[in-house]
């Protein structure tokens, strides 16, 4: 997990600095971080979906090969 931590930390640190105004916006930190983590999790999500489809393909492929006539019929 260390590389993940470093990537996020890097993204956090390289963000452009913003103008400071006279009032506090407690949501700013959440807003900025959300953008970074959403980009990161979009990659994770894509990989997850890709991996899921590969597993699905192989599980279907193997179950097809293993299924003989009547296989999968619980009542048989």
């Amino acid at each position, binding site marked *: *997990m260390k590389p993940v931590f470093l990537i996020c930390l890097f993204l956090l640190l390289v963000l452009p600095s*913003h103008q400071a105004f006279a009032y506090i916006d407690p949501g700013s930190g959440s807003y900025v971080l959300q953008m970074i983590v959403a980009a990161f999790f979009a990659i994770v999500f894509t990989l997850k979906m890709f991996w899921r489809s590969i597993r699905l393909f192989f599980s279907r492929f193997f179950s097809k090969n293993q299924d003989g006539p009547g296989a999968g019929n619980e009542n048989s």
Partner: protein
Amino acid sequence: MQETKIVDPASFRDPSGFVFTQQGVLYRQVQDSYRGQYERLIGSGLYKELVECELMVAHEEANPAPALGESAYRILRPERIPFLSYPYEWSFSQLKDAALLTLEIQKRSLQHGMVLKDAAAYNIQFLRGRPVLIDTLSFEHYKEGEPWVAYGQFCRHFLAPLALMAHKDIRLNQLFRIFIDGIPLDLAASLLPFGTRFKVSLMTHIHLHARSQKHYERKTISRNRYRISLYQFRALMDSFETAVRKLNWRPEGTEWGDYYECTNYSGDSLECKKQIVREFIRNYRPETVWDLGANTGLFSRIASDEGCYTVSFDIDPAAVEKNYRHVRQSREVNLLPLLADLSNPSPGLGYANRERMSFEQRGPAGAILALALIHHMAISNNVPLRKIAEYFSTLAGLLMIEFVPKNDSQVQRLLSTREDVFPQYTQDHFEQEFGRFFNIKSSVRVSGSERTLYLMQKR
């Protein structure tokens, strides 16, 4: 003459509307400013879908509408929640199910072009054994590119407390009592074990989030510069769901979780006690029952199975967790297990101490069950019998209470490590003190034990 309308003291933050009661009927006023969102919620089919799937509380549009002020668009009459509960009273799985419900609603909302504009745990209540969203005005139009405004709130109200309960200490949901808008992430980050930094979701949504909040504490940003696509938005919700699902807690090793397995009750005594409780419930048929010190809900189920809405309180998080899992597994609709420490029951909290009701304010119940409880209050907590009687008389009109005498092994256990400073803890004194506030209708000795069950009615 115009009937008095009482605005709910917890309903003031969201300008889209508010909740009020009139003649005991609950209404939700939708303000004209929320018209577009409300029409979308109904018109898109989202409301219908959420209600049909029992994810959200149903309502009827009131006609004629008892509006408050000039800016009302609709007046709704929502289904009543039998007992309002709060996250500091929930077991681990109750909070986890509330989190997953919020995410499920968010996913379905996105499919209808809407999004949750808040993610407070207080928007979730338990109805028929399941969590439901009660805030009909929590939805707004989804605008592509806009980040989730409730991102921080979801982390404070759900992810941080669940992570603390799972990874640090189950009792840390009590922080909700102090922090009304969820657990501050810097506090959560400092309390969580170091190892949680190596869990991707917790590292990002809590540890880095806390650092980011600190970094931007005194800065403001141009929000238009920060955009996330719908795909990224969905990925973010997926990461939350994965994180929440991975958080687990097993109820074991606490004081009461295995009470019935470890107790010295004989089978006959237990059966006798069950029979007495069942007869009481059948004879009086109270609408609501509060079982105080309910453990995993053995006696609560006698009441709930007879159709009484029963709230099953216990001090032990493991017992409440087991009880809730039972409710969920058996799809029980009349039972709500909750955490309660009767020596320090939930106070009124929030703005002016009126946003979250105290334990007592949510009463009175039709009847109270106080079985195998009195010795814990009187001996473990040094509460005089008169004070217990007085307090119970404020909670319900009917009381079924078990007196556990000093020679009972459970009382002996409590006295084994301390000086007996309770000379007045006797059955006679018990009857005398409770007799001040209640009429003792009947008393029955539990066979095979030294204990006595009393049925009392408030004077």
